[in-house]
């Protein structure tokens, strides 16, 4: 199986005034193509730092990170931007949609920074991304006209539109109720079944059980790594939650 993400002896230090914070103290980790990995851990365990580095938003202090065969430590800021645009899709806890901008324009956004995509193709791809998250009838709605779950789906469509090798989700269900959380997880599972590789940060154990593999961080190192045995099928879970339960 192809290694999409390979992390070798990775360390990350922050300098806050004169104090050095060791956020990551030597992490080795591999994510293969087609995996659905959930990263877990308490606050301050280093999981967010890890995701920032996987997302090429930050560079490691020490160690090696190879994304889809490219070592990122030698890349410039602009190269990293290009890499994020081509290879990665981001889903955030707070959705981060542009306000007063309709769903279609929001989804088109990553392609605006890809000069090889022409206007017509861009609109086509944005439309099909919205269709794949089941929002083809909400294309011209603005974020404030959409529910939280719908907004997160627009954000997922946005992360899909550039056909990334990995989708990175940072507490993507953190702002949603249980039912909507499983709706989103069902969508992720569906995407994963179609072959998308997903790395998901969460602190909810139930949500983590939707993934295929869990990695638990503690104090900047990997505490435990395990395949999920009793994986939750989010769709079945959804059916078991009564509608009025929320």
């Amino acid at each position: 199986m192809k290694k999409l993400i390979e992390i070798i002896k990775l360390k990350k230090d922050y300098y806050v005034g004169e104090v050095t914070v060791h956020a990551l103290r030597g992490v080795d980790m591999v994510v293969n193509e087609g995996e659905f990995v959930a990263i877990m851990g308490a606050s301050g365990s280093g999981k967010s730092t890890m995701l920032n580095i996987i997302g090429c938003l930050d560079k490691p202090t020490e160690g090696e990170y190879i994304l889809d065969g490219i070592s990122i430590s030698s890349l410039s800021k602009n190269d990293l931007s290009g890499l994020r645009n081509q290879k990665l899709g981001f889903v955030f806890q707070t959705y981060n949609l542009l306000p007063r901008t309709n769903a279609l324009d929001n989804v088109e956004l990553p392609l605006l920074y890809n000069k090889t995509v022409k206007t017509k193709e861009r609109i086509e791809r944005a439309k099909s991304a919205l269709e794949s998250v089941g929002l083809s009838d909400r294309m011209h709605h603005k974020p404030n006209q959409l529910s939280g779950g719908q907004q997160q789906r627009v954000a997922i469509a946005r992360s899909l539109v550039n056909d990334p090798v990995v989708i990175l989700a940072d507490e993507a269900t953190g702002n949603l109720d249980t039912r909507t959380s499983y709706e989103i997880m069902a969508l992720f599972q569906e995407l994963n079944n179609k072959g998308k590789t997903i790395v998901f940060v969460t602190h909810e154990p139930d949500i983590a059980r939707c993934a295929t593999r869990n990695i638990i961080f503690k104090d900047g190192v990997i505490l435990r790594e395990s395949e999920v045995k009793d994986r939750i099928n989010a769709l079945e879970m959804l059916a078991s939650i009564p509608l009025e339960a929320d």
Partner: protein
Amino acid sequence: MNALLRNKLRAFLTMLGIIIGVASVIAMLGIGQGSKLSIQQQIAGMGLNLVTVVPGSQQRGGVQFGASTMQSLKETDVAAILSDCPAVLAASPEVRGNGQAVFGALNWPTSLYGENESYLQIRERSVTNGRMFTDRELSSAAKVCLMGQTVVKNLFGEGADPVGQVIRFKKIPFLVIGVLDSKGLNTFGQDQDDLILAPYTTVQKRVLAITWVQSIYTSAVDSKSTADAATQIEETVRRQHKIKASDQDDFTIRNQTELLSTFSSVSNILTILLGAIAGISLLVGGIGIMNIMYVSVTERTREIGLRMAIGGKGFDILLQFLTESILLSITGGIIGILLGIAASKIIGSTMGWPIVVLPSSEILSFAVCTVIGVFFGWYPARKAASLDPIDALRYE
């Protein structure tokens, strides 16, 4: 760009600074230019193209006898100037006499000017009633005259038609054949309508009994060639008077260029002053844009973080904010220019000021707006571009 449409009121208020700045620049420069032009026109009304030849001062045994005391200018000089000076359009000899004009029981002290038929053209005057004297009347020294409005008023009463009447000037009867247009006071407060105009031959032979002329008035082909005309006239008259290269002129040439340049420099200072005041308001408008762009960058920190996370490079972000500020300033500039033109028209028509909006001041304001957009947009845009995506995404 959508960000501007998302915040229409704020965008408009931001532009307002630029709009007012540009509009006032346009209007102020318009007022400045207008006053300059009207001064130019007034001087041109006195004969901007006018080049005057007066006799030099007489000198006998080292004693100077005051200006224009020589009797050196002749009719033949006029003819020579007309034939030898290409920069001269028209020329008229002038002889003057002061005296009492009498009609019936009324009389009025005035000046009698003897001129040729080019007078109207040189002095930019016209005949409102009646006609100018003819070549035949000129060559036969006919006793005909035209009157200024002041003389008409004092000899015939307001609004009366003197054409066809006979008046007396120094006991010599003159048939009134026309009335000159009213020009009012000139810049020096002289009444330009207080005169009687007659053929110079008549004045020379029948009134003053002289053979020389007191001065020669010429008109250059245009205001720019007055200097050329003066040089050509000097050469021609020197040749006419057979003056040796080593000797001084026995005449003096005057033109209005100096007067014009004095007035022009005054109104130039006025224009600069008004423009500077307006420019300050434009600067304030620019600072307004900078302020709003800073607010906008802070407010949209998360958006910037997101744009960076999904692949926007620093340069893309810089360009985005720079485009917004330039768009703001240019739109403001265009509205300001239109408003400035409208304001100039309104001021011009209500206050009766002459206002001239030059295309150059429009282009200048537009260019300044673009520069303001870039200059005041640069720092906020740089701030946006230099944000760290991780911090920006977490920004509350």
